[in-house]
């Protein structure tokens, strides 16, 4: 898959070394958020609302306080922001207030499981008993769960001060629609009038959880002078610091956040739930507090992603050229605004060059947990609808589904609906590689069907920091600002090793806490290899420049005559008796030649390149049970350059598996009383090893990203975008009718097959 490298063969980038933190991870030594023990540490526990919507009339903690072993009890009133009633203007402050109120309710509870109080005690059993002794009186209010019901006039209102934004003039009455997002171009109505063929449909998806195996966990320790420490599993130690410090009204420099190893995040750990609560408990009693969610709490009270209702309509010529598309998307935000519906609008047609587009998105609150980011937030649902409609179009026209996409695929220079111009894209090449693949050419057996779907994600750059330190024996330590979710330590070390010309074994990578490395945005958004990698390379380049200067001084030659390659400085001036100087030699003399050799770089990386994916799903259905079995799967993606191919393959395989679960089995099931009925791994059914085949990957590296020193594009999020439709298209072909409602659980499939 590799193209020619930019000038000279790469020695480390593109190889598959063992990740530097690997031994710790396979021996149980790696420390995750719940693995810390501190002297005097207390066990925390949270009391949660049993009602989906209610006013909090009173909270009586007196009985709980008397229980021996209870050291602190807090409620929403113990946070500094919002509870006092002083609300600063501004979106940022409102967002913080909503996070705080999601961590501990103020005034109202908005979903079953919404936290109302927390306890710290000497033993977990005592904390549990104390939680039961806290008496909360509620005035139960009518609730609403479903997105269309929440949008309907007369629906129970969650927030009396919510007036739909994005509507001019501002509406007179509050509603549950937080935002209306409108985007488009051209003459959609005209294009539909003259279309040869139109396909349309309503598509729905259910709320699904990111499903990380590690529940949220933290340990918080308040110092007597206010200087505090939080250990937590998180996708962003600086984000945790910012949110917790603002919620507790502390200066940022008083809060040190140490990122533990993280057991999966996928976007769900780019916010806080427990950390402010644990710290405010610690503040009250002066002892460290550990707070860990149970799996049930993870389902009840941590963000899933939105369920959705979408109407899509596509117009095309009889040759398969899409001339117009119209789409309505309504996404659930949960209890507070902030669904990714606008990102759904922006990505829905991003793969295709469509002149006339009209998209409307609604961000709708209802009595469910507040949604959090989930891998390419907003895109998978939108792609499900669009890629299903395209599959229907291909069937109607008698066209091969890949040919239909090739006919409409964006190429460099195409203008997206959201303002970006496509560049460095290999979407066409990816489609062509899938079409030419052995999988695509393999005939299907009776009863099997094949689904094809494509997907897009922007990928971002953003703020990152990295330091490169040279040890006195010539080894190197890289300090990265970003928690390592998927093996990025390996990639950071590899990019540093490549730049410095060292073997990978001489480069170690560690992750800094908020006091020991510059600021960084979270690990997520497919940005770490791109942006933090860029910072690593820039820091390594500065080190190389420093090494060359020291070599020049050592030889007494012109700096321009010094070359650095394979970890050694050589002098191109034949008049100097200049023996090559290795990294080790220069490092050992560093004290005498100017001091320590180290560099730290902080950047705000721009120039991230978008990614495109194309997936194939072969599937068969058991006619007695309706169970769909994926028998073969291929994920192809435009990755720019795979720094460590095994971890890039891993992103494609993991994203595909999540998408398959989303398509076939995963959903939040609510009863009429607003209770979540399947808050456990038994009943929230994620794919296990026996559900899946091997997942083949095709890494397309024909268009490296010219804005990254090694050509990397973000890869982590694209893989979850195509699978929903890839699976649904296959099921639709087996069943013989268009399946429009996810998940395609056995009961649903059986019912569709029975209708004949």
């Amino acid at each position, binding site marked *: 898959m590799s193209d020619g490298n930019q000038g000279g063969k790469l020695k480390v980038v593109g190889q598959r070394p063992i990740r530097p933190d690997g031994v710790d991870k396979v021996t149980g030594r790696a420390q995750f958020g719940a693995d810390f023990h501190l002297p005097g540490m207390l066990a925390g526990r949270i009391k949660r609302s049993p009602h989906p919507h209610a006013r909090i009339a009173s909270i009586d903690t007196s009985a709980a306080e008397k229980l021996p072993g209870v050291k602190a009890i807090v409620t929403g009133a113990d946070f500094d922001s919002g509870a006092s009633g002083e609300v600063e203007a*501004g*979106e*940022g402050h409102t967002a913080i207030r909503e996070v705080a109120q999601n961590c501990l309710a103020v005034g109202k509870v908005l979903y079953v499981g919404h936290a109302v109080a927390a306890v710290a005690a000497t033993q977990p059993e005592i904390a549990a008993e104390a939680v039961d002794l806290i008496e909360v009186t509620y005035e139960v209010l009518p609730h609403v769960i479903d997105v269309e019901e929440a949008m309907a006039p007369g629906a129970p209102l969650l927030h009396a001060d919510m007036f739909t*934004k*994005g*509507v*001019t*003039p*501002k509406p007179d009455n509050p509603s549950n629609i937080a*935002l*209306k*997002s*409108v*985007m488009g171009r051209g003459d959609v109505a005209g294009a539909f009038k003259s279309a040869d063929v139109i396909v349309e449909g309503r598509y729905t998806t259910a709320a699904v959880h*990111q499903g990380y195996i590690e529940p949220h966990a933290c340990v918080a320790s308040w110092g007597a002078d206010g200087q505090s420490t939080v250990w937590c599993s998180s996708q962003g130690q600086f984000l945790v610091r910012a949110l917790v410090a603002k919620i507790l009204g502390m200066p940022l420099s008083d809060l040190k956040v140490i990122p533990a190893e993280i057991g999966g995040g*996928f*976007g*769900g750990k*780019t916010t806080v739930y427990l950390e402010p609560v644990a710290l405010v408990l610690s503040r009250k009693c002066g002892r460290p507090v550990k707070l860990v969610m149970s799996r049930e709490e993870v389902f009840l009270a941590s963000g899933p992603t939105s369920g959705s209702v979408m109407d899509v309509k596509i117009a095309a010529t009889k040759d398969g050229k899409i001339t117009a598309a119209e789409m309505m998307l309504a996404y659930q935000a949960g209890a507070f605004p902030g669904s*990714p519906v*606008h*990102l759904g*609008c*922006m990505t829905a047609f991003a793969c295709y060059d469509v002149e006339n587009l009209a998209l409307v998105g609604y961000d709708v609150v209802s009595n469910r947990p507040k949604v*959090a*980011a*989930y*891998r*390419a*937030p907003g895109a998978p649902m939108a792609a499900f609808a669009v890629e299903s409609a395209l599959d229907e179009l291909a069937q109607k026209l008698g066209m091969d589904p890949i040919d239909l996409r090739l006919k409409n695929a964006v190429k460099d220079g195409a*203008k997206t*609906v*959201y*303002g*970006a*111009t496509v*560049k460095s894209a290999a979407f066409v090449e990816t489609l062509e590689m899938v079409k030419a693949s052995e999988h695509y050419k393999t005939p299907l057996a009776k009863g099997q069907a094949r689904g094809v779907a494509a997907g897009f*994600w*922007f*990928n*971002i*750059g*953003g*703020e990152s920091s990295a330091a490169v330190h040279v040890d006195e024996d010539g080894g190197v330590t890289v300090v990265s600002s970003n928690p390592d979710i998927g093996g990025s330590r390996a990639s950071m070390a590899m990019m540093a090793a490549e730049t410095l010309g060292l073997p990978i074994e001489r480069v170690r990578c560690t992750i800094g806490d908020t006091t020991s490395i510059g600021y960084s945005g979270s690990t*997520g*958004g*497919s*940005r770490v290899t791109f942006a933090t990698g860029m910072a690593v390379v820039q820091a390594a380049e500065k080190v190389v420049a420093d090494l060359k200067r020291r070599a020049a001084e050592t030889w007494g030659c012109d700096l321009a005559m010094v070359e650095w390659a394979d970890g050694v400085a050589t002098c191109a001036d034949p008049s100097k008796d200049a023996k090559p100087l290795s990294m080790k030699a220069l490092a050992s003399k560093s004290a005498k030649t100017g001091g320590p050799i180290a560099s730290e770089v902080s950047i*705000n990386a*721009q*120039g*991230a390149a978008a990614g495109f994916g194309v997936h194939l799903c072969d599937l068969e259905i058991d006619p007695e049970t309706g169970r769909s079995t994926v028998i073969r799967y291929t994920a192809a993606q435009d990755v720019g350059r795979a720094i460590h191919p095994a971890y890039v393959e891993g992103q494609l395989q993991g994203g595909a598996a999540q998408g398959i679960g989303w398509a076939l089995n995963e959903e939040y099931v609510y009863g009429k009383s607003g209770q979540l009925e399947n808050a456990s791994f038994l009943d929230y059914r994620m794919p296990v090893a026996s559900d899946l085949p091997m997942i083949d990957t095709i890494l397309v590296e024909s268009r490296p990203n010219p804005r990254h020193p090694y050509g990397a594009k973000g890869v982590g*999020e694209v893989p979850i975008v195509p699978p929903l439709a890839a699976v649904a298209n296959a099921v639709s072909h087996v069943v013989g009718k268009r399946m429009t409602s996810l998940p395609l659980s056995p009961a649903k499939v059986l019912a569709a097959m029975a209708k004949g």
Partner: protein
Amino acid sequence: MARLTTISGRVGDFTGGLTHFDVEARSVRALVRELERRFPGLGEFVEDQMAIAIDGEIFQDALTAEFGADSEIVLIPRISGG
């Protein structure tokens, strides 16, 4: 005059529904100031809550980015990830 459009309905909340207009500015920083002057609150909103596409390239948190007299500017919602 650089031409400015937006795909976000939020901008209309500040401009009374206006979504296409010309701007004098030549840098994002100057643009933010001009928008704040013409539509109070919008400049701050754009700086904190939005990304900008300049001639087809996306910039996020890039006050120093510059553009030309015939550039096309699109105000877009911030792009995050998961």
